[in-house]
């Protein structure tokens, strides 16, 4: 049974994918016809280290229910060290988000190489299922924008 | 047990085995110590389940010849676990009343002074619900 049929709630999910690995992994999932829910929308970035925590906060502010960041496996970064930066930044950010009420299940970092179409698909299926089970997200607001 | 499902489906469910993973290499049959006693051979188990022909499988003597020695499970290169599949088939039989391969009344004839308790316990578990 597909996830689509199981859950009525359709989460909004943003996936940041490194151009060199997971974006290509997603392409491979596509050309291998390995499905995952349409709730996932991918944004291409040159490296996982390009992802500013601000982008993720912005996504949650604008109504995302889950955000996943995919990069190259440790040691395999196209730019040598970018994924290590990303890992450290996200560890901090995710624990802070958890504190704010955005549960850990709504955020994830995953290493997916260009050859791992299967992993990309299973990761997205798992992630969507997890986020869907958590239901709608709290909306983060920017206090500066309030009157 | 889940009613309304075909026996082949039940076997798949109980055993947790995905018969589609089999690549028909025959290493299970090459390893099986009971091969010659079986009418349906270990490498054939998957076909019966895939073809929804569970009836032939559950009526085969192979059910009662598998020793659960796990040689096929250990050596299978595709992680199919034929031994679990045949155990699933056996389960669908022993879970139905009256289909027991071992009757309590026949036990005394099998006993001898050296026979360990463990043997009785194991045989009961294997042959009966």
């Amino acid at each position, binding site marked *: 049974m597909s996830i689509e049929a199981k859950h009525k709630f359709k989460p909004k999910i943003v996936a940041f994918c490194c151009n060199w690995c997971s974006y290509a992994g997603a392409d491979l999932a596509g050309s291998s016809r390995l499905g995952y829910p349409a709730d996932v929308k991918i944004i291409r970035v040159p490296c996982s280290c390009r992802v500013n925590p601000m982008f993720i906060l912005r996504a949650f502010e604008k109504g995302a229910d889950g955000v996943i960041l995919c990069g190259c496996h440790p040691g395999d970064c196209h730019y040598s060290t970018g994924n290590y930066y990303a890992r450290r930044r996200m560890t901090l950010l995710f624990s802070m988000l958890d504190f704010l009420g955005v549960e850990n299940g709504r955020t994830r970092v995953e290493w997916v190489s260009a050859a791992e179409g299967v992993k990309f698909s299973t990761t997205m299926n798992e992630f969507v299922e997890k986020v869907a089970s958590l239901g709608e997200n709290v909306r983060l607001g920017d206090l500066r924008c309030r009157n | 047990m889940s009613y309304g499902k075909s026996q082949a489906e039940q076997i798949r469910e109980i*055993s947790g085995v995905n018969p589609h993973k089999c690549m028909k290499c025959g290493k299970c049959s090459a390893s099986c110590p*009971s091969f010659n006693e079986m009418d349906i051979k270990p490498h054939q188990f998957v076909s019966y389940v895939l073809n929804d022909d569970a009836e032939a499988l559950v009526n085969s003597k192979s059910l009662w010849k598998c020793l659960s020695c796990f040689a096929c499970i*250990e050596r299978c290169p595709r992680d199919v676990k034929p031994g679990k599949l045949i*155990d699933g088939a056996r389960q669908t039989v022993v879970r139905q009343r009256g289909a027991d391969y*071992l009757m309590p009344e026949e036990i005394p004839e099998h006993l001898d002074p050296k026979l360990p*308790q*463990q043997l009785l*316990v194991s045989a009961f578990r294997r042959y009966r619900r």
Partner: protein
Amino acid sequence: MKYSYYPGCTLKTKAKEMDAYARASAEALGFELEEIVDWQCCGGVYPLGTDEIASKLSSVRALDAAKEKGQDLVTLCSACHHVIKRVNDDMKNVDDIQTRANNYMELDVPYKGETEVLHYLEVLRDRIGFEALKEKIVNPLKGRKIGAYYGCLLLRPSGLMAFDNPENPSIIEDFIRAIGAEPVVYPYRNECCGGYISLKEKDLARNMTANIMDSAAGFGAEALITACPLCLYNLGLSQNAARLPVYYFTALLAEALGVKEEVLAS
């Protein structure tokens, strides 16, 4: 060192001596086997069906009892070891079984596979050490050529049992060396003895054990040792083949440690 100990049904009846030798040897080696109170039969075989719960509960009880005491759980019979070790793995790694078993059990604290399950041989290898064992031997079994018979249950499936190399094990050979005897390696030491088939179809088991016996004798073994009462029984059935004596490994251990006589006397 104190371990929780699960003897199992046969060690209380037909294989009493295996148990008695193990306890006496443990004492000589400086560890204690504390029998679990009111243990129940493990069932003899591990239930393979993914939906089997009730048949695993007795093992969970034993495992939980060891956890309560904060002890590792030691087993002696291969079959008990196989069942308890695999149930423990289920409780640790299979969410569904863990949840449902705990629902049945209604324990104060749910059991989640915390206990470590050790076979007596693993205690000798990993806790005592075969080198240390060697030093405690007072009566080395010099010149005795002994074949190890492993059977299936200790070794397979190797991923779960994590006991030894499933196709070319060495733990019992190392044990034989430690007690001063000479191990005889033969290829059928990990082949099945026939297991429970021997209740109804003794001839089938006979064929299998004959193969094992011939192979061991062919390589020069004068005796076999095993850790399983059912293997011992089946090996004893063999006909039209070499008829090597079969002992429990604990019997030789007790002999080498010089405690055999006191066990026999008691």
